[in-house]
């Protein structure tokens, strides 16, 4: 398998995330899909790091960084979504079209 296997898994994860982000209408599920894509990237970063010829932790640190950012993003995102759900009484993003022209 080697590196290619990790990358395939990563690609599949990313594709699922991207598809989910575009196809789903539920705000919380879209947030989860974003997390999925981020983690796909994390996986590829860690895999690249592991298969590097010289020993290094850069990829891992990058992944940790992304996890931290993702955590913050998820927090803020969730807070926003909950606030919207409270006011609009729905999680369907189709209903959130007041910002159109």
């Amino acid at each position, binding site marked *: 398998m080697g590196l290619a296997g990790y990358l395939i898994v990563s690609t599949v994860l990313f594709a699922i995330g991207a598809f989910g*982000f*575009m196809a789903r209408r539920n705000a919380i599920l879209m947030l989860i899909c974003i997390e999925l894509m981020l983690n796909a990237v994390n996986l590829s970063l860690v895999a690249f790091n592991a298969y590097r010829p010289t020993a290094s932790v850069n990829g891992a640190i990058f992944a940790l960084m992304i996890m931290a950012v993702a955590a913050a993003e998820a927090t803020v995102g969730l807070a926003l979504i909950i606030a919207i759900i409270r006011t609009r009484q729905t999680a369907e993003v189709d209903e959130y*079209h007041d910002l159109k022209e």
Partner: protein
Amino acid sequence: MELLIALIPALPLIGFLFSVLVGSRLDHVPSHGHDDYDAQAHPTDTDAADVHESADVAAHAPDAHDEVEEALESVPTEEEQAETSPHAGHADDLANAQGADGVIPEELNNGLGQSGHVAPDGPQPRYRSWIVPTALVGIMWLFSMVVFANVIFGGKTFHVTVYEWIASGDFKIEIAFFVDALTAMLLLVVSSVGLLVHVYSIGYMNGDRGFWRFFAYLNLFMFSMLLLILGDNYLMLYIGWEAVGLCSYALIGFWYKKPSAAGAAKKAFVVNRIGDLGFALGIMMIWTLLGTLNFDGVFEGIGGVSQMQVTIIALLLFAGAVGKSAQFPLHVWLPDAMEGPTPVSALIHAATMVNAGVYMVARSNPIFAHAPIAMWVVAGIGIFTAIFAAAIALTQNDIKKVLAYSTVSQLAYMFTALGIGAWAAAIFHLVSHGFFKGLLFMGSGSVIHGAGGEQDMRLLGGLREKMKWTYWTMVIGSLALAGIPIFAGFFSKDEILGEAFNRGYLLFYLVGVVVAFMTAFYTFRMIFMTFHGRWRGPHEVWRHVHESAATMVAPLAILAVPTVLVGLLFGLPPEGGLIHGWLGGVFEESDHAGILPGSIAAGEHHGFELFGGGGLLLLVGAAAGVLGILLAYRWYVQRTEEPARFVERIPFGLGPGMYRASVNKYYVDDIYQLIFARGGVIVGELLWWFDAKVIDGAVNGTGRLADWIGGGLRKVQTGRVENYGLGMAAGLVLVLIAFLVWR
């Protein structure tokens, strides 16, 4: 002496400031009865109702006013109606300025105001605002004469630097005065005529609400004119040049509520600007090429400039002179400038300001001497204008217009002289012309004043009975203008003609003799129509005809003296008079410019011979003058029906057409009206269309395009998160593809 010279222009400036500050409080002008400003707001022949109103407002002699108007309406014959009809409907400036030919004399109310009509109630009229300005000009005259004597008899020149005005690197402009013989000659004319006009105006402007304003303007004019002739560099000359133009504008439009006066002022200003643009460009070119504007520096450096550049400079300078001295094709403003009060016509438009162009060309003689082509242009325009203006003056019926065209013609003589290199002769004629034309204009003002404001010579006549002083002084002036021996004009004019002959300009000489004949004819046509025969105006006005006040007649009598003597004093013996000795130094370098090869002057100069070629030339010149006077006497005193018959006898039936053309000033005004006024409107309309359609179209089009693009783009903003997400994903894919393709 330096202080004296610096004070010469300063004194009128002080007088101007004084008049502006306190002048209006010194006069008390009766506010009713002389209210010619409002009453004459619309003095056009179509506004008959208005005119009758004004007759009521003008409390005195309303009947006379009506009579005058009726007489005016009935007088013009078929041919003469052509004179007024083309202008009657014009509302534009150019035509406005001509519209009032012999319509309602502007000085009617003024003139009768002189006859002692005083409002019964209210304080006595009081005029004191003339005292300070006139006194200052009097002192200025004394200083001028001292300077004149020092320069002319002492043979000195003066440079007076007042202070450094502009200093920027190598470029320096000083407020500095320069007096040499040329300036001294101008100083003589300007200060003498200026002082006399001040005195004359005391009587002439009596009863006018703008009395103090008039003196303020006169003093400002004196200041500007003195700056012009005293300036030591081209910039000061230019400042004076523009300032006299401004004063001319203010004084032509002195009766500013009269549309024709306001129009004439505007016309004079605009036409002068055309010439001044050339003058300004010439000065800029001088500075660009030589880096200095001081006369000395320029004349030293001009030899090192290429032939073509000198020619361009000379022509540009001459363009300014053409405008200021009213030469063809920019002569049109001067006849209309007669809308101004007559003292203004005498001072500015005959004796001083219009000479500025001649002075400037004479002052720039080293430049012109290096530019033979420019000299030819000067002489050519001069001789053409001379005969052109004389041919118009033959048929004019307004006494002031005759004199105005005569002025144009005489100035043209001077330019002819300048163009053939007869510098001193031109200045000689300038001086003598300044005196006798000033005299003639003041005399015509006295006639207008005494005859109740009538300017149309067809309605005058027989005035010599009642206006003896005016008659005799004007005859003296006319004899001088006609070039009759012993009078000033004879010597100066014949000197120009003689120079033209000697220097080999035979054609110019012949045309000049013809012009001399025409000059004598129209001058005495004016004298005979005005002073001889019987009164042709309304009866009531005749009763009021009177000799003018002493303040008006005295300047006439005083001016008659130099009119007789200047020629004898300055010009004897012919072609070698005193004035040549005085001016010799100024024109030393350029003396031989313009002499044609093979001419008398080019060969051995054997001086003037009274019983030789020179005497013969004098005889021809005098004969032309005498013949002109005799013809005028025959036509306008003995057989008054003769002119009309002569017109019919011109072959091929051209007579009436030629007459009409002359009366209508050869349609120059109408052509300008057509080309520049109408043409301007058409060009303006085209530009307006271009602006509205193309420029505005482009601007509005840009706006509409942005609007349209925005309208398309706003559909993209759906407000749906998934659409944005799709957009981002699509963008990402595009970037990836681009990355893969162009890697």
